[in-house]
């Protein structure tokens, strides 16, 4: 059963820009204030109020545009998008219609192939534009109506629109991961979907493979995490495919993702509900951005994920995949580099971070920066492995203890006497004993079952209470068995 249809996906991401004050007034943007306290005549849309643009908002918009390889518009203006909703105080949103701050960029996304290899795919960025956020409506627990809180009204947003270049839910997920990484590196947003500082709407249609025309697109809203976006797209593609295969037409509509039901549901909307009657905002003057200013901002960009991946690959000898994983989350990349600064092997650090470290981070559901083991302490443990003081296996026991108690690796090793046994003489003695008392296994090894040596290794380990270096034990046993003169080791 081959699937003759391919999905066509475009994503619209709204990013709240991290400024001190709102986009058009000096109200604080900080999260968590009492309802309607971070407000003033401007963001409440009181009669007579007027907007004035926050210079840092334009700056951040340009920086993101540059990081996404966009052309930065030298002439910028704002427009009014008119519609009615209680969270929109003026009944229009000040946004950008035909002269957005940035356009025609791209984002590199790592896409996993069927053979588990990764290739890089370039996803086009149509545009990025600035606009003001709306207030918040609360429905839960409100009797006979809804509550409105305008603290969020006027918070600056950057809307980033991708070309419909994505071809699978997994690609969409990776696009969001890559985009978030760039935004984190620029430090322009908290990028937190649960808190609402990053929001995503998706547009998806399907068409027969090989077809160049687009099918009818459906807009999906209400996805609260990157995984939700992936799941919603997967569901919607399946729904559309089944519909088309049944001869049904896809209607152009907006559908909401229902996380608990795992389905999208149609939002019935009136035919002409979306005539936004855009026109240039008369209360804001036009803006000109000089080439010099754009270059100044370009020079001020920090090292971005792409460059950092290349550097990790070259400087630390990491595989491109490992570099990609570490770099994708800026804090993870920072953690890695701080660890390596303590002079431990990058490969070792990379492996441990991706396995043991991330396992505990995910288990506790915390952020990287909240991890109780700081890079210096972490490096301390890794050094003990590197100089053979402990085996890798023992280190894996020490690590969670460090996590839970905050104790250093050295102190745990000392307290519990975990120093690896490397005394070859002692090991030789134990090896001799083990060989002697396990004749049956020795015979098995010699008669063509070399893997049974693992049992002997285990026995030696038992006698050393796990503190011997298994590699060393293996070497010794193999040597001894070989010198017994029969069979292969």
């Amino acid at each position, binding site marked *: 059963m081959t699937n003759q249809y391919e999905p066509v996906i475009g994503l619209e991401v709204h990013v709240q820009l991290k*400024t*001190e*004050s709102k986009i058009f007034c*000096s*109200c*604080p*943007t900080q999260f968590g204030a*009492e*309802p*309607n*306290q*971070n*407000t*003033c*005549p401007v963001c*409440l849309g*009181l009669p007579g109020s007027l907007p*004035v*643009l*926050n*210079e*840092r*908002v*334009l700056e951040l918009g340009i920086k993101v545009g540059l990081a996404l390889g966009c052309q930065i518009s030298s002439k910028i*203006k704002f427009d009014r998008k008119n519609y*009615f*909703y*209680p969270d929109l105080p003026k009944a229009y949103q000040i946004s950008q219609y035909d002269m957005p701050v940035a356009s025609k960029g791209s984002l590199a996304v790592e896409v996993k192939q069927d053979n588990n290899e990764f290739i890089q795919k370039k996803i086009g960025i149509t545009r990025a534009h600035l606009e003001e956020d709306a207030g918040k*409506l*609360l*429905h839960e627990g*409100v009797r*006979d*109506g*809804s*509550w*409105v*809180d*305008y603290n969020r009204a006027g918070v600056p947003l950057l809307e980033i629109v991708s070309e419909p270049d994505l071809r699978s839910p997994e690609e969409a997920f990776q696009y969001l991961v890559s985009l978030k990484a760039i935004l984190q590196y620029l430090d322009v947003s908290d990028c937190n979907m649960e808190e609402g500082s990053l929001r995503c709407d998706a547009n998806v249609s399907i068409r027969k493979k090989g077809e160049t025309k687009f099918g009818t697109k459906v807009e999906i809203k209400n996805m609260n995490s990157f995984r939700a976006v992936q799941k919603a797209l997967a569901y919607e593609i399946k729904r559309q495919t089944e519909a088309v295969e049944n001869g049904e037409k896809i209607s152009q509509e907006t559908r909401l993702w229902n996380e608990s039901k795992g389905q999208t549901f149609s*939002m*019935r*909307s*009136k035919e*002409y*509900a979306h*005539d936004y*009657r855009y026109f*240039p905002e*008369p209360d*804001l*003057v*036009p*803006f*000109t951005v000089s080439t010099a200013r754009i270059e100044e901002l370009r020079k001020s960009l920090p090292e971005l994920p792409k460059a950092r991946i290349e550097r990790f690959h070259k400087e630390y000898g990491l595989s491109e995949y490992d570099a990609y994983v570490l770099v994708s989350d800026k804090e993870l990349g920072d953690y890695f580099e701080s660890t390596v600064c303590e002079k431990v092997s990058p490969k070792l650090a990379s492996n441990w971070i991706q396995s043991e470290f991330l396992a505990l981070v995910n288990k506790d559901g915390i952020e990287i920066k909240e991890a109780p083991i700081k890079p210096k302490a972490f490096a301390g443990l890794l050094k003990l492995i590197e100089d053979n003081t402990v085996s890798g296996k023992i280190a894996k026991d020490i690590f969670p203890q460090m996590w839970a108690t905050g104790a250093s690796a050295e102190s745990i090793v000392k307290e519990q006497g975990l120093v690896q046994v490397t005394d070859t003489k002692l090991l030789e003695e134990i090896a001799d004993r083990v060989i002697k008392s396990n004749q049956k296994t020795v015979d098995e090894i010699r008669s063509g079952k070399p893997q049974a040596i693992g049992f002997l290794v285990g026995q030696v380990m038992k006698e050393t209470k796990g503190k011997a270096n298994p590699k060393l034990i293996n070497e010794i046993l193999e040597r001894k068995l070989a010198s017994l003169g029969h069979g292969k080791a």
Partner: protein
Amino acid sequence: MPQKININQIAELARLSLKPNEQAKLSKDLEEILAYVDQLQELKTDNVQPTSHVLPIENVFRKDSSQPSDIGDAVLKHAPKSEGKFFKVPKIIEGA
């Protein structure tokens, strides 16, 4: 270009509910006014730039610093309906 106005569609966009006699009169008024403004079509303006702003002002900014304004409570006090620190609106059903 005489315009036939779909007054109901425009009223819907503007959130105005018009009574039947109002609809007829307003339709007529609008058609008359639009017939009058149609004279602008006499002018050739293909190479004319539109004027959105009469003054040659550009690049007016504010610094990114926050200043609380403390008027939230005053506005809530005089709001048509409020509950605690929130503005209250009636139930939102589809097509609002």
